[in-house]
């Protein structure tokens, strides 16, 4: 059995958010992933992020492809519609859903196999279209459900559990997203919830394609020495270059702003993301310099994390298509069908 319903019993003392819901109201079924799986930590961060934002769960659509990561939407927001697409093809479902109902808040969860191999094309084109979705790539460098093959994000020189050495270059989701014109690019670590929660919140508020590559160690097949996606390796090599704080629209910005190291960017819904630059020379609003800096630090085996790039003034897919405020799916038929008189008139053209 891989589906276990979670009992919905609330302890009366559980803290409630602005719409009166507890954290439990943002949970889903009990996870069936391995104990200690990085993905479960990400699920916990997602739950906390949505709870803190007081989003009504049913206004969210959660989508995924196929693989361990893609199972996780079952484990959060039980009152949100979910869509488990075919392998690597969640972006197309999200694109269609976004066109039909631009008002849906969409979160997509994918993995490195789903996104960087079979689904590389769809991911690329969803980025290019700037579909309004928060897209999480739960990156463990390995195929878990089929028991331990390298994925496209495995670093050259890293070894599999059985000792094989990967000889090919890795496809880096962050560099890919920057190259393709993504408007929100972040990297994080499943073991760093404090960093992850505000990134998720900012990604949800961002209008357009928000991409977060999250190193999420696979405890069963890729947590050994020789792996560059293990807990130990990531803890040792992670360098937070930009720490992002998310500030909801209704809250005032209270934190002290040091002009040299802090930058505030207003998002489309009026919320703010405050970026604390840990590295002095880094500019998260300069795509080319961000790319160059990440590449440079990769050469010395640093895994840069944080909100690495943001462009808050881009047009998302719905705006590019000039869609009305009311979702296409909800438009009354009278506004869609030209009617018989018009058909009669039109047919003069065909005589």
């Amino acid at each position: 059995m891989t589906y276990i319903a979670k009992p919905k019993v609330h302890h009366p003392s559980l803290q409630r958010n602005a719409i009166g819901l507890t954290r439990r109201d943002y949970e889903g079924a009990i996870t069936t992933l391995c104990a200690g799986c990085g993905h479960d930590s990400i699920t916990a961060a997602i739950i906390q992020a949505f709870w803190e934002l007081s989003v009504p769960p049913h206004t969210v659509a959660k989508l995924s492809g196929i693989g361990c990561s893609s199972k996780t939407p079952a484990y959060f927001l039980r009152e949100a519609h979910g869509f488990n697409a075919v392998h690597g093809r969640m972006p197309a479902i999200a694109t269609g859903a976004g066109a039909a109902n631009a008002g849906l808040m969409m979160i997509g969860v994918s993995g490195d196999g789903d996104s960087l191999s079979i689904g590389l094309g769809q991911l690329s084109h969803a980025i290019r279209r700037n579909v309004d979705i928060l897209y999480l790539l739960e990156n463990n460098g390995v195929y878990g459900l089929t028991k331990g093959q390298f994925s496209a994000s495995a670093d050259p020189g890293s070894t599999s559990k059985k000792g094989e050495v990967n000889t090919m270059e890795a496809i880096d989701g962050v560099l890919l997203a920057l190259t393709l014109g993504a408007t929100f690019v972040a990297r994080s670590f499943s073991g760093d919830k404090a960093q992850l929660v505000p990134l998720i919140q900012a990604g949800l508020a961002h209008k357009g394609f928000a991409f977060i590559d999250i190193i999420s160690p696979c405890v069963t097949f890729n947590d050994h020495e020789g792996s560059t996606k293990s807990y130990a390796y990531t803890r040792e090599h992670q360098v937070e270059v930009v720490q992002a704080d998310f500030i909801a629209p209704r809250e005032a910005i209270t934190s002290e702003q040091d002009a040299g190291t802090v930058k505030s960017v207003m998002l489309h819904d009026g919320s703010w993301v405050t970026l604390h630059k840990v590295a002095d020379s880094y500019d998260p609003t300069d795509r080319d310099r961000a790319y160059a800096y990440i590449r440079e630090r990769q050469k010395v085996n640093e895994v840069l994390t944080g909100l690495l790039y943001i462009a808050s003034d881009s047009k998302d897919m719905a705006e590019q298509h000039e869609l009305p405020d009311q979702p296409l799916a909800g438009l009354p038929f009278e506004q869609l069908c030209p009617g018989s008189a018009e058909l009669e008139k039109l047919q003069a053209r065909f005589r």
Partner: protein
Amino acid sequence: MSQINDFAFKIATANGTGSASANGLIMQAIFRMGVPVTGKNVFPSNIQGLPTWYEIRVSKDGYTARTPHFDLMAALNPATYATDVAEVRSGGWLLHDSTWPLDETLKRPDVTYLGVPLAEMCNAAFKGVRERILMKNIACAGALAALLGMDTGIIKGLTREKFSKKPALLDSNAKAIALGFDYATAHFDCPLPIRLEPMDETKDSILIDGNTAAGLGAVYAGATVGAWYPITPSTSLMEAFKGFCQKYRRDEATKRNRYAIIQAEDELAAIGMVIGASWAGARAFTPTSGPGISLMNEFIGLAYYAEVPAVLFDVQRAGPSTGMPTRTQQCDLLLCAYASHGDTRHICLYPADPREAFEMAVHAFDLAERFQTPVFVLSDLDIGMNDWMVPKLAWDDGYRPDRGKVLSAAELDQAKRFYRYLDVDGDGIPQRTLPGVHPKGAYFTRGSGHNKYGAYTEDADEYEEVMERLARKIQSAAKAVPAPVVRKAAAPTTLGLITVGGCHAACMEAIDVMAKDGIALDYLRVRGFPFGDEVHEFVRQHDVTFVVEQNRDAQLRSLLMLETGAGVAAFESVRYYAGFPMSAHHVIAGVKAKLERAA
């Protein structure tokens, strides 16, 4: 012997020389004379330079099938002279550009040659290479007008309408028509024995291609999301949809569109977008052709199993593989009926002409939403891209989309609980909810094993229960798809003929011809899949049923055998699949050959 309003002619040119506008002018002029006419564009997979032909059949009796017997050939492409000369019937006419002498080897004693110095006249009358080339085709149309006895007033009216906003073009076109018309009148005995006389047979008809009609149908059905990857011969369907949406769905005041057309990165993405949009509550569709359907297979299975509506237009072209992209075939009948791995079966609609393409486009969206499943509209290149004369399209303003069992927020509020795949009222169709509407409506859409409550399962009984219901659901659509068209022979007969789609025109004509020869055939044209009771009964009622179709492997016959349980002896297969539309003579020859063998 004169042939009034009953002849065929063909215009041979090169791609990219502007011949389409001249051909359209001739077709429309004949149509406006009230004479039934059809045109078949035979074109290469090329933008410029390769040979292209346009075949026009004039039939006072209203026969619209292609005929391969040409009374007149306008041979304007030296590259194809030899084959074009050979195709003229004995006693026929050949119009050629006499600017240059015709090679003696191309002369046939049984053909009358009509030399018109088109290039010479156009070079003298027009400036610039482009205009000289374009106007040669128009001048040829002028010569044909004189030779065939077209109404010059109608031609003038048509050019005025077409170029009302481009006076320079109007002048050149009028001049070119006059050049050809006057030359033919002065040098030949006009009109020829094959000629036109005004009739009153087209006033309730239009000339339209199936892709335009289907695109218009999608607009009238209220489709708001179209996702596609360009592919011949379906491209013009989305272009038509786009054009109509720009006309009817654009709010200039707010600068907003009541539609979204997404050009996908491939067909896999296109169908994914359609499924995503339908899941979110929009009417969504994708136009494609065989190669696209091949790519979409995995997602089609998901939509079938997860029960998400989707409308797919398959404008069929000759396969397999890339095949012949600009030639027609009915080669995806089996592919669409059972597309995707695992046990699947799909609702298919088979239009026979552009009018049905319009009607079935609308019907397809209703069926997709009512049965919560992919629905295929299988047209083909001949229907999709050629201009057909069909009765005017009609629209009932009382029509409202059948959205199926979609629960509203109010209904969900009242409901105790909602289970996505529960057969609540015994018809095999579960209730559906849309995302973002109500907390009680949430469920997980998945292509993995699920039970009737929508939960993941690997349990044998739970899995089978859902699969059995799905089989029942699709079978029940047999009563909802368009009923077959049946025409009984004048006298009782044990012989039947079943066909599909665009073969209709050829079959009707062939049956009329064979009736005169004493061969009586009852006729049935399937219009939907799964087949309804009428189809099963028709096969049972006849000793032998001829199955006429355009593919090598007798796919319709296979479908009939699989679905009716009738054995191979119950059928005789008649096929023509070389890439051109079926002609009556193919049907007649096929049926007669089988009958002679049996005798």
